């Protein structure tokens, strides 16, 4: 037994991200860790790699109890973590990034020659052609991911954790990665492989662990289970889920927003119509241009082409405010960095949308502000104590409701939700799905940008799938399945048959 995690508990504020979890991995084993987004996989792995300190629980390596309090210590124990988001310094060279914090030195000075050679060696093993002297910012997304992987292979390690390593990779690159993984496995290296892509997991992994809502719900051998069973384990589902999927559409057929062949930095030639009362989901993997498209529609990013909102054409010069006044609203992704105004009160956070679009008089009427707060508090059941409390005193889900309240008070009727349930606990997630459907019922038109399949199936009338900046497919409600979304968003229809066979 190489590594054992026992009874691990992790909490973020009131939210329990990891709930009494046991986990074990043997020498020379590849374990697949599965679960929906937010199930606690990354948190668990961050604990193992020393990024988070668990509230409770113990970690054993080769039977010995260890305290891993930071990444350096984890590395000393032979544990490497390839993170989901790329942690590279974009202004440094490839080899400098690979050796960051562990530079090889000669007479106290950097030994660049050795570092270059070693980097080159690893790339050769991985059969990729990346110049160690290239600047990271000049690399493609897939190349960055390969550098991140190469970094873990650079030093001798016993356990390599890979958090969705293949999202930006082509099938060929994934095959090469698997080749190296198998080779290292022979040498006794273990892997924890986190992925949403079933075919990959079944191909490379020996055993599985399934997490759901912070708990470890199942484990076993991949040879004894099939995709359907494992999906069921992952989604499992709670009471709220039963009979949830809404069947009817509230679309009236009247076009409220028409996107005409727009292209931006990360996406190309996107066209579609949004009808009143319709809910369209837009999905795609990291780097598919999904984020850029959401920002462009709201006027936060430049684009060519026009977007017609209720008969008024907006080119890229049209400001966010102009779009807001025409009824467009966006609940942005990364709520902490892009959504909430963290120094302001809950009340002000709600009112700011109204101020921008409707406020006319010289002074603010504090009593009316409070009315707005109370109205949205009740409307969205925001769990808050006082309008003057800082917005940061609320949980993530309630903060998201505050932002939604902001737009409801601004009088918006076209809503762009960009990853609306990111980092939100399951209960509140369902509340937000209900709110989205209620909005559609009330005649509002909705675009949901999401990477979460369960979210899409629950709310969307139809789903657009993006791949490498283009619209790869448009699925209507009957066609939306996890397999199909995966199939188009990984570009399987263009690049190969491998994933295609399962679709």
């Amino acid at each position, binding site marked *: 037994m190489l590594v054992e995690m026992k009874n691990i508990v992790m909490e973020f504020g009131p939210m329990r991200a990891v709930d009494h979890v046991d986990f074990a991995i043997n020498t020379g084993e590849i374990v697949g860790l599965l679960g929906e987004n937010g199930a606690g996989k990354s948190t668990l792995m961050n604990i193992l790699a020393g990024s988070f300190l668990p509230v409770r629980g113990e970690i054993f390596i080769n039977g010995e109890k260890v305290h891993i309090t930071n990444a350096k210590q984890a590395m000393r124990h032979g544990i490497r973590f390839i993170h989901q988001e790329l942690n590279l310094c974009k202004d440094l060279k490839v080899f400098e990034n690979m050796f960051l914090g562990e530079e090889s030195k000669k007479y106290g000075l950097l030994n660049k020659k050795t570092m270059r050679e070693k980097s080159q060696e690893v790339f050769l093993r991985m059969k990729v052609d990346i110049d160690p002297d290239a600047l990271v910012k000049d690399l493609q997304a897939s190349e960055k991911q390969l550098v991140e992987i190469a970094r873990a292979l650079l030093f001798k390690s016993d356990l390599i954790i890979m958090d969705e390593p293949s999202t930006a990779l082509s099938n060929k690159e994934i095959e090469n990665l698997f080749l190296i993984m198998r080779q290292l496995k022979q040498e006794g290296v273990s892997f924890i492989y986190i992925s949403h892509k079933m075919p990959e997991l079944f191909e490379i992994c020996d055993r599985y662990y399934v997490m759901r809502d912070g708990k470890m719900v199942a484990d076993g051998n991949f040879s004894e289970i099939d995709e359907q069973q494992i999906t069921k384990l992952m989604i499992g589902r709670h009471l709220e889920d039963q009979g949830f999927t809404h069947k009817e559409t509230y679309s009236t057929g009247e076009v409220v927003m028409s996107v005409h062949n727009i292209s931006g930095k990360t996406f190309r030639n996107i066209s579609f119509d949004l009808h009143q009362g319709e809910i369209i989901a837009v999905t795609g993997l990291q780097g598919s241009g999904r984020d850029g498209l959401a920002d462009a529609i709201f006027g936060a990013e430049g684009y060519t082409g026009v977007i017609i909102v209720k008969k008024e054409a907006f080119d890229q010069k049209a400001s966010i405010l102009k779009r807001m006044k025409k009824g467009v609203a966006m609940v942005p992704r990364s709520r902490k960095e892009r959504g909430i105004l963290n120094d302001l009160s809950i009340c002000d956070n709600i009112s*700011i949308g109204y101020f921008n679009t409707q*406020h006319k008089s010289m002074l603010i009427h504090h009593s009316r502000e409070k009315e707005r707060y109370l109205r949205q508090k009740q409307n969205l059941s925001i769990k808050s104590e006082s309008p003057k409390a800082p917005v940061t005193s609320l949980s993530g889900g309630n903060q998201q409701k505050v932002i939604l309240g902001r737009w409801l008070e601004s009088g918006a009727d076209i809503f762009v939700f960009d990853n609306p349930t990111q980092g939100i606990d399951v209960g509140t997630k369902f509340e937000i799905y209900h709110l989205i459907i209620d909005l559609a019922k009330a005649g509002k038109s909705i675009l949901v940008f999401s990477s979460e399949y369960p979210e899409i199936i629950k709310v969307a009338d139809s789903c657009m799938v993006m791949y490498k900046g283009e619209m790869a497919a448009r699925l209507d409600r009957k066609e939306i399945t996890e397999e199909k979304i995966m199939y188009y968003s990984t570009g399987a229809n263009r690049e190969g048959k491998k994933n295609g066979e399962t679709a």
Partner: protein
Amino acid sequence: MVKQHSEVKAPSIHLRVKSAIGKVFNEHSYWVSFVIILIIAFAVDRSFFSWGNISTIFVQASVTGIIALGMSMVISAGEIDISVGAQVAIISGLSIEVLNKTNNIFTMLLFALAFGAIIGTINGLLVAFGRLPAMIATLAMQTICRSIINHLGQGGPFTVSKENFDTFRMIAAGTLSLGSIRIPYPMIMFIVLSLLFGLIMSSTTLGKYIYAVGSNETSARLAGINVKLIKITVFLITGVLCGFSSWLYSSRVMAVAAASAGSAYEMDAIAAVAIGGTSMSGGRGKIIGTFLGALMFKIINVILTMADVPTFLNGAISGSIIIVAVLLQNIRNQDR
């Protein structure tokens, strides 16, 4: 978990008192410091609370205090303006020239306000569109203003001419008599402007937008706020206030020395804002804090003089007080 819940439901009296005191310290720390300083002042000088003394402190605090109101806005928006002292030098020097040419106090005021608006707008444009860090943009502006007025003054002061002397002097020296008490004009100006800006920051959308921009630019932009316009506005308003302050300053000194006029005013203004509890990283703060901060800064000087602290050491002590004030703020912010 269970244990924590029971604690939340029934806080002991001790905890409740503690949290109430904590609230005063957190939300209104400037009142606490203000009261402490008043007590010290009274201990040092029993006649401290005489009307004459109080009104003198107001008059002394007014010039930098008015600038601090603008500084409060700039800092709340997450920026800084260190050109205000040099702005006062160039505006007061040139507006005295205008007064001497036109013999009209109000033409002079209009000129000062407009000139300040122009300098402020340039600062704002550099920060908003040129994407210069505010520290660099206003540092450059400070150097430019000071250099130009030094050149124009050629060593000599800008002096108010004889025919305007008596009328213009009364702007700063005049008083409004209310029964037996006489309220100096600068005191009225400072209080009225403080009330006005307090209202702007707390009860207008502009105020809310300024805090929003200082809190988180990206979020503010995505809430539809024109971030660039807000930034230009805060620098512009600060410029206008510098113009007003220059007018008042000219009337107080009557002869403006190019090299030393308004020197270190930016530090006084920033200090008033900092002592007043405004977050140096933007997003939080109150005008009343700045108002009290400006007064406290002058009161400290009075105390030091009363206590016979050598004049040259005044700076060391007021500097230490700023450090303590901001340190306390940081400790509070960590609690959040």
